[in-house]
């Protein structure tokens, strides 16, 4: 075998790597010597000195400087290549050494790689989520210059715009080069093969503001915004709709598309990457294409549009923000509440707020839970690393003698540290590679776990422009992150043990290989004890967080939403406006209801425009004509169109008065039912039944009589109490988009097929969609909380497991090193129980210190959770006591197991070692 000489031989022969110029000097010297020797040789053979010199030069080839240069260069190259090869040889040697070392203890290697794979993989997955939802630039041109501008009131948070209010703002603002409105809504693509699509209703400058250029066709003309309503119906279609519905027809511009039975002329196709602010837009249509009366000044309080703006070059966001405050008040002055609209409640001051679009890309709770999870996985990784450091430390100390010998025969400390570091890096790289699998699985889970629908059902923004959960990918950025974490883990947590193991106090080690044989004293070493303390503290922090989240989740699941969700199927029927005449709508729905009631398995049928736990429904202002008009504020109420059967179907209890009957119909006296929250808030000291109220929607602004009070139903989110609500009978108000509720005898999903068939007979052109059981809706409404609590608990359990392994490892190592001492103690008559107690006590001390530190840290850190918790204080004593018990028991078991082993030591066996 003709391998290269071993690395290190060069150094042995003092062939240190030389610098370029010194190599050239040496080459010069060698060649000069050669020439001199050659000349002397020729003279000795009888040549003249001149002839000898000439012949010597001839033998050299061309001119002397040229040869010198050529050989000098060749010598430098040679040295460089040799140095490089030596470095590679060293590295290969280290790697081989490390691999051999790891192969000798495969169990250790497997545990370490597995631990790291989980630790790093979890970090990769959560990083991918953080990156997709919070870090990655929004998919618009120069997104940092985009603002979200919202109306605000002192009583409510940021809210949306109406067309009249937008006009006031747009005409007065000076900070933005353009501002635009957008509202998203579902719609039906009518005609043959009807289809559900998502529409964005936008102003002309929408695409300009976002910095999107149309490649096919042209953008909306600017003049479409100078008219308020009945503008030409034009549409821009998404690239995917163009491919899907028009088979990528290059002549699509100029064709028509039918949306809710209205014909829109296609004027352009959007670029493939652009999905609108909503991230799911199929079609953009102009705001001003709506009927004039829907955009008139009377609709100033129909707040349905999001406003965005692009800052003018050089304008600081701060200036835009202060301008928004001033203009917000001006908007209110232009459209104050109408006469008689002021009623009870506190004075409301309206203004506007401008924030970078980036800050509203996800809801605050989502952002917060992601950050909490990121901290949590960081802690898991830290514990995994502490375990790795512990394991390496254990290995290093069992190799003390070998290392001491190496140091003694002159191996440099740096070289040894490098050798040991190679091992930890190798482990880290193996763990990092395996972690890609964990990360891939994790991102997949995150992507599917928290779908956008569930988030919006909780009233949470789910990412702007398609940068939501569905965009979480294990992309190159995440892989770079993984690689960086892996390197950091390998270096940082290999370095401490390596430095410690090569501490130059060799004499003792050389003299006595079994350093652990001395009597008395703890043999764990300060570093390992600190690591145990750290592990306990970190695990406790995580457990505290997850304990709080679990309690919060339990509270959330225990909330009574005000209805019975068991065995209820919900579905929607898309009835495009115009297909059924508005006035015959109640009749149409009556037909639908009676047909569905005949379906076997269906017990009750009901209708409502908005399902419970929808993340919010339609709301308006209510006034009280029999009270003095005090200019103090406004009474907001939710308005729900329901069929008389809805309360019974949903098991919503009647508290006072009566419910709707079929006699409450169009043309009859208008009646409303209110919920208890409305009764409490707006009729604190009187009986609302029989009172007259004005509800500014559905034609109830002329006044209606309150006929009954029902129990509160949570229409918003599970964790927010029901707001004041009013119900009006769909028999008394025209409305087209009703949701159908079926209470069934058995599993509600079994009636889906027959219900579909029945509806197809009545309305063959109206797609049925959004079919879900009410239980699914309730589940989706708590998905965000379940998501955070589940993941946090998962991480906490992993952390606890790792900490258990860590403590167990450290304690059994300590016991193994003290076997001789323990043997002597037992031989001298020590009670085995006392030995057991002694060792457990050692562990207990470390655990107590760790728990104390962990508790203090948890108290400080769980404040992060405050906004995520529902009816649990971040300092909830029950949780803390619980987790201290859990950690304490786990830690005691982890130190009891090795202790029991130690107490069973046979003295003869131990002393023989």
């Amino acid at each position, binding site marked *: 075998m003709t391998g290269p000489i071993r690395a290190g031989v060069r150094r042995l022969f003092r062939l240190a790597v030389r610098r370029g110029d010194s190599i050239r000097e040496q080459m010069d010297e060698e060649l000069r*010597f050669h020439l001199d020797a050659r000349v002397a040789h020729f003279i000795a053979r009888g040549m003249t000195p001149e002839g000898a010199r000439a012949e010597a030069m001839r033998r050299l080839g061309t001119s002397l400087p040229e040869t010198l240069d050529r050989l000098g260069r060749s010598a430098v190259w040679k040295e460089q290549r040799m140095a490089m090869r030596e470095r590679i040889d060293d590295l290969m040697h280290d790697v081989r050494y490390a691999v051999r070392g790891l192969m000798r203890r495969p169990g250790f290697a497997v545990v370490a790689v597995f631990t790291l794979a989980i630790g790093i993989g979890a970090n990769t997955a959560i990083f991918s989520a953080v990156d997709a939802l919070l870090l990655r630039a929004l998919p618009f041109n120069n997104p940092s210059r985009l603002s979200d501008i919202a109306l605000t009131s002192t009583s409510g948070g940021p809210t949306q715009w109406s067309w009249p209010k937008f006009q006031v703002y747009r005409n007065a603002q000076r900070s933005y080069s353009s501002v635009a409105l957008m509202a998203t809504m579902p719609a039906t693509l009518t005609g043959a093969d009807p289809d559900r699509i998502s529409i964005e209703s936008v102003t002309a400058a929408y695409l300009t503001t976002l910095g999107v250029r149309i490649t096919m066709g042209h953008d909306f003309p600017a003049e479409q915004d100078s008219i308020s309503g009945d503008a030409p119906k034009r549409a821009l279609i998404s690239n995917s709709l163009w491919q899907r519905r028009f088979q990528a027809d290059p002549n699509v511009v100029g064709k028509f598309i039918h949306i809710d039975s209205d014909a829109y002329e296609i004027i352009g196709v959007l670029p493939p990457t652009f999905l609108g602010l909503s991230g799911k837009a199929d079609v953009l249509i102009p705001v001003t294409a709506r009927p004039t009366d829907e955009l008139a000044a009377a609709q100033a309080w129909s707040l349905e549009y999001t406003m965005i703006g692009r800052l003018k070059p050089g304008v600081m966001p701060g200036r835009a923000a202060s301008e928004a405050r001033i203009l917000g008040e001006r908007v209110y002055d232009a459209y104050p509440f109408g006469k008689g609209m002021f009623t009870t409640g506190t004075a409301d001051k309206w203004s506007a707020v401008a924030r970078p679009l980036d800050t509203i890309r996800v809801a605050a709770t989502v952002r917060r839970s992601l950050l909490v999870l990121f901290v949590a996985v960081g802690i898991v990784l830290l514990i995994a690393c502490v375990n790795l450091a512990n394991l390496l430390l254990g290995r290093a100390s069992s190799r003390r003698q070998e290392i001491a010998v190496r140091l003694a025969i002159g191996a440099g400390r740096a070289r040894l540290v490098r050798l040991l570091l190679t091992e930890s890096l190798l482990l880290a790289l193996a763990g990092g590679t395996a972690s890609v699998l964990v990360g891939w699985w994790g991102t997949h889970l995150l992507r599917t776990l928290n779908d956008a629908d569930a988030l919006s059902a909780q009233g949470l923004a789910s990412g702007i422009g398609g940068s939501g959960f569905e965009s979480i990918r294990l992309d190159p950025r995440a892989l770079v992150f993984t690689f960086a974490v892996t390197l950091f883990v390998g270096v940082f947590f290999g370095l401490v043990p390596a430095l410690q193991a090569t501490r130059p106090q060799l004499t003792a080690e050389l003299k006595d290989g079994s350093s652990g044989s001395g009597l008395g004293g703890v043999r764990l070493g300060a570093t390992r004890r600190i690591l145990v303390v750290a592990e306990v503290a970190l695990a406790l922090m995580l457990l505290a967080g997850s304990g709080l989240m679990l309690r919060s989740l339990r509270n959330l699941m225990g909330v009574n939403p005000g209805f019975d969700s068991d065995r209820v199927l919900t579905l929607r029927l898309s009835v495009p406006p115009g297909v059924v005449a508005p006035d015959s709508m109640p009749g149409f729905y009556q037909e639908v209801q009676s047909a569905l009631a005949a379906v076997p398995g269906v017990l009750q049928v009901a209708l409502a425009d908005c399902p419970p736990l929808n993340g919010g429904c339609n709301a308006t202002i209510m006034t009280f004509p029999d009270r003095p008009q005090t200019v103090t504020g406004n009474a907001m109420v939710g308005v729900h169109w329901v069929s008389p059967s809805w309360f019974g179907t949903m098991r919503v209890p009647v508290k006072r008065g009566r419910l709707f009957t079929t006699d409450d119909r169009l043309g009859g006296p208008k009646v409303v039912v209110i919920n208890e929250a409305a009764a409490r808030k707006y009729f604190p000291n009187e009986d609302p039944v029989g009172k007259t109220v004005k509800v500014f929607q559905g034609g109830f602004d002329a006044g209606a009589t309150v006929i009954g009070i029902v129990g509160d139903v949570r229409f918003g989110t599970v964790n927010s109490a029901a707001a004041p609500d009013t119900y009006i009978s769909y028999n008394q108000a025209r409305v087209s988009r009703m949701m159908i509720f079926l209470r069934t005898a058995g599993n509600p999903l079994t009636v889906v097929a027959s219900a579909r068939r029945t509806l197809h007979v009545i309305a063959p052109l109206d797609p049925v969609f959004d079919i879900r059981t009410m239980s699914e809706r309730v589940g989706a409404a708590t998905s965000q909380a379940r998501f955070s609590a589940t993941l946090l608990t998962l991480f906490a359990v992993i952390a606890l497991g790792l900490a258990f392994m860590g403590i167990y490892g450290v304690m059994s190592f300590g016991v193994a090193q003290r076997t001789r001492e323990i043997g002597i103690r037992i031989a001298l008559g020590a009670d085995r129980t006392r030995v057991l107690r002694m060792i457990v006590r050692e562990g207990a001390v470390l655990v107590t210190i760790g728990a104390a530190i962990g508790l203090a840290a948890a108290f400080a850190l769980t404040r992060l959770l405050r906004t995520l918790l529902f009816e649990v204080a971040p300092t909830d004593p029950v949780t803390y006591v619980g987790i201290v018990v859990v950690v304490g028991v786990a830690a005691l078991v982890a130190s009891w197991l090795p202790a029991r082993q130690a107490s069973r030591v046979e003295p003869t066996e131990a002393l023989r070692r």
Partner: protein
Amino acid sequence: MAQPTPLLKGTLDVLVLKSLCWGAMHGFEITVWLEDHSAGYLAVDDGALYQALHRMEERLLIRAEWGITENNRRARYYMLTATGRAHLRSESASLVRYARTVMAILAEHPA
């Protein structure tokens, strides 16, 4: 002096290794050795020799060290490594086989 024959490609390395079989030599000694042992038939270009030395040093076939000549001058001495010795064995065997074959063919006479 007869006109020296230029070296066949690839043979220089083997010859240099062979020369070092007898012990460490500096570059000039190697050229003299080659000339002596070929009775002056082989011409070695000095520049080419040093490049060959660099090449073989890099391949760890030889190693170099500064030493002192009998005339008290510093010179770079080259010596065989274990790898170099093994390389020499295998290379010279194949070179000899090659030469024999060529010779045998050239020695054939038409019948």
